[in-house]
């Protein structure tokens, strides 16, 4: 059996852990730079606020409704996520962390230990809340995809009270019938439209399709999804774990940027972040996209983009920053209030499989990069960095509604009243 455990509206839940005053209030969390709403708790949802909406559009509404607004506090979320994952890991010897707020557990040969998965799930849920004050939902099923489906039921159907187990045919059919096909793991928006056109609306409809037909008409991945929905395990951890095929580092500015040097510093900062991610997953970038844009809400939105193809793929910060610096002149337009910049590593190559070129030699300095990563690993991010990244970052994120750094700053410890 597999379990999928995830936190209910993780970011908003994290905000309540050290602030009991807002535990029963509607809360929303804003993305980087307070641009968009990225998390909405149940109470805020009931008031009609939804995710992915630009904050300025609902600002007034939020004030009138008394909704608690927070900037995203990633330091806090990362700490609480680590605690949550550690508590969950006690319930199985095989845990796979899928994202900041969800993980799988695999129970292999546990039939002698766990005889009632429903009460085991309740125990997981209660322990996580007891020890971390984060509410989670637990879905358990014979395959990862069914565990995901059970989790969806646990979350959306009140009768399950946060824990659903698919352990017989009846419940499997019930849960899949109550689930629209777009909620199935691995089924995106485009595919949903295609499936709907073929009269497939629920997860159960999808499960009933003949697997071979699915492979012919869609893809082998969807065939596996169909098999998984019928209880046949096809997805393995190591397949889910594959390194990212693309790396992005982008952000909006706190204040509009009008100067070329500031634009360059910001882009170089993203370049350095992306280069570090490349080294972490042992990839090289062959094609780099560098872009700068004004706000999409401006009267005349401007997007500037430049692709840089490396003759020799690289993950060296110095080489990448040099490419970025070269691109600045073509990206920058005087007078444009730049709002967002970023770097996309579009074409990645696995370091292991890179074939060296006889005529083009690499300018990478792996030893220097290793040294850089180790120093920053020990003394904190950007303890040492390229001067091109700049020193005074005027373009730093805007986080107007940031909660205190409860777990990372001695001066921000939560107050405990002795009165």
């Amino acid at each position, binding site marked *: 059996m597999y379990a999928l455990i995830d936190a209910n509206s993780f970011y908003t839940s994290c905000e309540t852990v050290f602030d009991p005053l807002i535990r029963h209030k509607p809360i929303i969390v804003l993305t980087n730079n307070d641009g968009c709403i990225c998390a909405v708790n149940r109470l805020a949802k009931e008031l009609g606020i939804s995710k992915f909406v630009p904050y300025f559009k609902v600002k007034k509404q939020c004030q009138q409704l008394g909704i608690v607004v927070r900037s995203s506090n990633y330091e806090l979320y990362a700490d609480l996520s680590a605690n949550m994952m550690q508590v969950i890991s006690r319930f199985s010897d095989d845990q796979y962390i899928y994202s900041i707020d969800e993980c799988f557990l695999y129970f292999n040969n546990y039939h002698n230990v766990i005889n009632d998965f429903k009460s085991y799930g309740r125990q997981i849920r209660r322990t996580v809340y*007891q020890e971390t004050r984060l509410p989670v939902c637990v879905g358990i099923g014979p395959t990862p995809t069914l565990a995901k489906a059970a989790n969806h039921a646990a979350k959306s159907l009140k009768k399950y009270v946060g824990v659903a187990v698919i352990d017989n045919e009846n419940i499997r059919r019930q849960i899949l019938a109550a689930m629209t096909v777009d909620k199935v793991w691995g089924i995106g928006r485009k595919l949903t439209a295609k499936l709907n056109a073929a009269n497939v609306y629920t997860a159960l409809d999808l499960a009933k399709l003949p697997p071979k037909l699915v492979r012919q008409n869609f893809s082998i991945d969807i065939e596996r999804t169909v098999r998984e929905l019928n209880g046949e395990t096809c997805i393995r951890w190591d397949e889910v774990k594959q390194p990212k095929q693309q790396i992005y580092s982008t952000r909006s500015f706190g204040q509009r940027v009008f100067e070329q040097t500031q634009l360059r510093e910001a882009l170089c900062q993203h370049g350095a972040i992306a280069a570090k991610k490349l080294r972490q997953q042992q990839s090289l970038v062959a094609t780099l996209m560098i872009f700068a844009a004004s706000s999409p809400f401006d009267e005349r939105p401007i997007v500037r983009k430049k692709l840089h193809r490396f003759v020799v793929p690289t993950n060296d910060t110095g080489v990448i920053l040099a490419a970025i610096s070269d691109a600045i002149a073509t990206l920058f337009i005087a007078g444009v209030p730049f709002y967002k910049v970023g770097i996309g590593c579009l074409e990645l190559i696995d370091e292991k499989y890179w074939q060296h070129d006889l005529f083009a030699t690499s300018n990478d300095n792996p030893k220097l990069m290793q040294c850089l990563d180790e120093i920053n690993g020990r003394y904190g991010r950007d303890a040492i960095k390229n001067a091109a990244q700049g020193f005074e970052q005027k373009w730093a994120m805007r986080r107007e509604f940031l909660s205190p750094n409860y777990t990372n700053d*001695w001066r921000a410890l*939560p107050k405990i009243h002795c009165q």
Partner: protein
Amino acid sequence: MVIILIVTPILIEAGISGFESPAAEYSQLGLSLDQLLIDHPQATFLGLANGDSMNQVGIYHGDILIVDRAVTPRHMDVVVATYNGNFSCKLFDENQRRLLSASEHYPPINIGDGDSFLIEGVVIRSIRCHRASRFSDVCTD
């Protein structure tokens, strides 16, 4: 919870050369205050005592409280409760199912059956900085 406080013991040798102290090979291990003070790292948080109602049990304004959510409170444990939207430091009267303030000015709070999460955690240790720490100036005010 990430508190890394490593104290490396200083070896006092008597100035005898030739023989290395038999303790030398152990000195690298160090002592970690985390190890001593924290039992369940993932279930523990730190808070700052604010006020003097708990002076009688040895908790003073500005002390750092180590709060463990994983342990079951026992009779007359010092606990942190969520009350009126605040974290409050109280004594847990198990026999009468209520939370007491160490000061007489505050009436006891009864714990109903539905209030199982009224108690946030047990204060398992408290730390007082007799001189301000360079990381925390809060203790001096």
